[in-house]
């Protein structure tokens, strides 16, 4: 190889690598800008909610959002927990809405945990690859049903069937809504459970079988304990989805703004309240700002739930990798 040739090659390869480098850098910046934009967006939503809630606290007072103290005819004071921003004496207790949200979300989470984990175990540990290939898309379809359709079905058919069978005090109630919520939460918990179980290294199954354990003993004593953090994350994320869901609760829960702990009564959730009232409220009224307080409570609580789930998952991945 003569000197000229060498020069040519070195120049040429330098040009190529420079071009490649620029391309890689551009790609890197593209993704960085995207993620920064996402963070910026979330942050501005939060600041916006915070600002509007601040206005609400300023104009209405923080105490009002817990409950309202009124004096009874007997002369004693009593706190009532109601959400009635449009009444003459407006009431802004978020407590009743918070309890409403929990009254639908907690049973839905319980149901989804039970069935979702069972389905996840089936998918990961028991199903043949054929039946898994069929079952997985079916489950994903369930997760993708528009929630308004589920709400409608619960309202039209679910309520009638449930009413005829159990005669609850209210035709539309929290229980009905939580059944509807389960339809979307079960697939979420199921696929997250499957993912968690599949991330358990196969060597652990082998160890268990080689010690004489059968399939159930292996699932119960080895696989589930190894995936416990993944399972908790699945349940938390399912819960987050149930708390954040709007349409199903709006349609199936009866929408009564009374504080109740009875699951067979009508109630109202935080999400349904925002959805139902935001369209009609007059701009920058007290009611308008109060809705933002609900929004902030929702935003913060789902954010924290997701954060906890993410932390747990991270920890699990690290633990299983070592």
């Amino acid at each position, binding site marked *: 190889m003569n000197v000229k040739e060498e020069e040519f090659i070195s120049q040429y390869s330098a040009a190529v690598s420079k071009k490649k480098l620029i391309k890689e850098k551009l790609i890197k910046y593209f993704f960085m800008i995207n993620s920064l934009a996402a963070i910026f967006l979330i942050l501005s939503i939060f600041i916006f909610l915070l600002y509007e809630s601040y206005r609400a606290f300023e104009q209405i007072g923080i105490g009002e959002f817990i409950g309202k103290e009124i004096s009874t005819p007997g002369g004693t004071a009593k706190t009532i927990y109601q959400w009635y921003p449009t009444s003459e004496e407006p009431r802004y207790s978020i407590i009743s809405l918070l309890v409403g949200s929990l009254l639908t979300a907690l049973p839905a989470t319980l149901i989804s945990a039970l069935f979702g984990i069972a389905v996840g175990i089936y998918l990961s540990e028991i199903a043949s690859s054929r039946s898994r290939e069929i079952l997985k898309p079916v489950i994903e379809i369930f997760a993708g049903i528009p929630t308004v359709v589920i709400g409608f079905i619960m309202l039209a058919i679910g309520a009638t069937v449930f009413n005829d069978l159990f005669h609850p005090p209210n035709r539309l109630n929290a229980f009905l809504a939580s059944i509807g919520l389960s339809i979307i939460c079960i697939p979420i918990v199921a696929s997250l459970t499957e993912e968690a179980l599949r991330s358990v290294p196969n*060597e652990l199954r082998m*160890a*268990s079988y*080689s010690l004489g*354990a059968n399939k159930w003993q292996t699932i119960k004593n080895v696989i589930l304990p190894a995936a416990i953090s993944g399972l908790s994350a699945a349940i938390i994320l399912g819960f987050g989805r149930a708390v954040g869901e709007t349409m199903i609760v709006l349609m199936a829960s009866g929408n009564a703004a009374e504080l109740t702990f009875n699951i067979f009564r009508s109630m109202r959730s935080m999400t349904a309240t925002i959805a139902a009232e935001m369209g009609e409220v007059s701009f920058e009224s007290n009611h308008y700002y109060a809705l933002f307080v609900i929004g902030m409570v929702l935003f913060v609580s789902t954010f924290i739930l997701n954060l906890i789930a993410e932390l747990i998952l991270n920890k699990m991945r690290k633990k*299983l990798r070592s």
Partner: protein
Amino acid sequence: MKEVKIKINNLSVYFNYIQALNDVSIELYANRVTSIIGPSGCGKTSLLRTINRMNDLMHGFRLTGEVLIDGVNIYEPEIDVVNLRKLVGMIFQKSNLFPKSVYENLAFAPMLHGIKDKKEIEEIVERTAIQAGVWNEIKDRLNENALNFSAGQQQRICIARALTVEPDILLMDEPATALDPVSTARIEELIFELKRKYTIVVVTHNMQQAARISDYTAFFYLGHLVEYDKTTRIFTNPANKQTEDYVTGRFG
């Protein structure tokens, strides 16, 4: 005096349409260490997993021929796989301790098989850990997560765990491949100790290791048993040209 512990007659193993072992007949002796050597993919792991029926878990597994342990064909329908696996312990290439405490790892099998008395379990834990030469390192750390221990320690805890079912036979699939020389030496010493009580079958890719630890060596190639003899003979004066080429490192 040597006593035949495992007798394999005309064994062929298939995974779907792949044939992993082809008409293998071999007798493995009690209280001896037998090395299984051969190039990658020649069926060493398949052979080990046939002896404790772990292959049953593999998709598309099928076999013809017989595997007799103490004269009993372990593929007879009336054989209880749980009892078989209590008779035949297995050590894997990479330690696969459960992400639980050391104690829970060692108590796993005894509790599984119905031992409830805490004292009895503690005795088993101590005895097997002593046997596996790891007791001194774990005795003050029994409640610590097993994955906190070094790779070599973990592998010896695995051996202890395999001993908790009180097996007669230990199958080891490249037990020291993932370890540093010092840890490897400890495992080799341990194998030497354990053969007094157990029948040991070790798969290894390390010729020096096979020569050091085993009494008998079987050389496999493409699913066939090419040569099986005393280790000294396999490494000094093999009958087969392929064996000679392999143990001297000319191919593999």
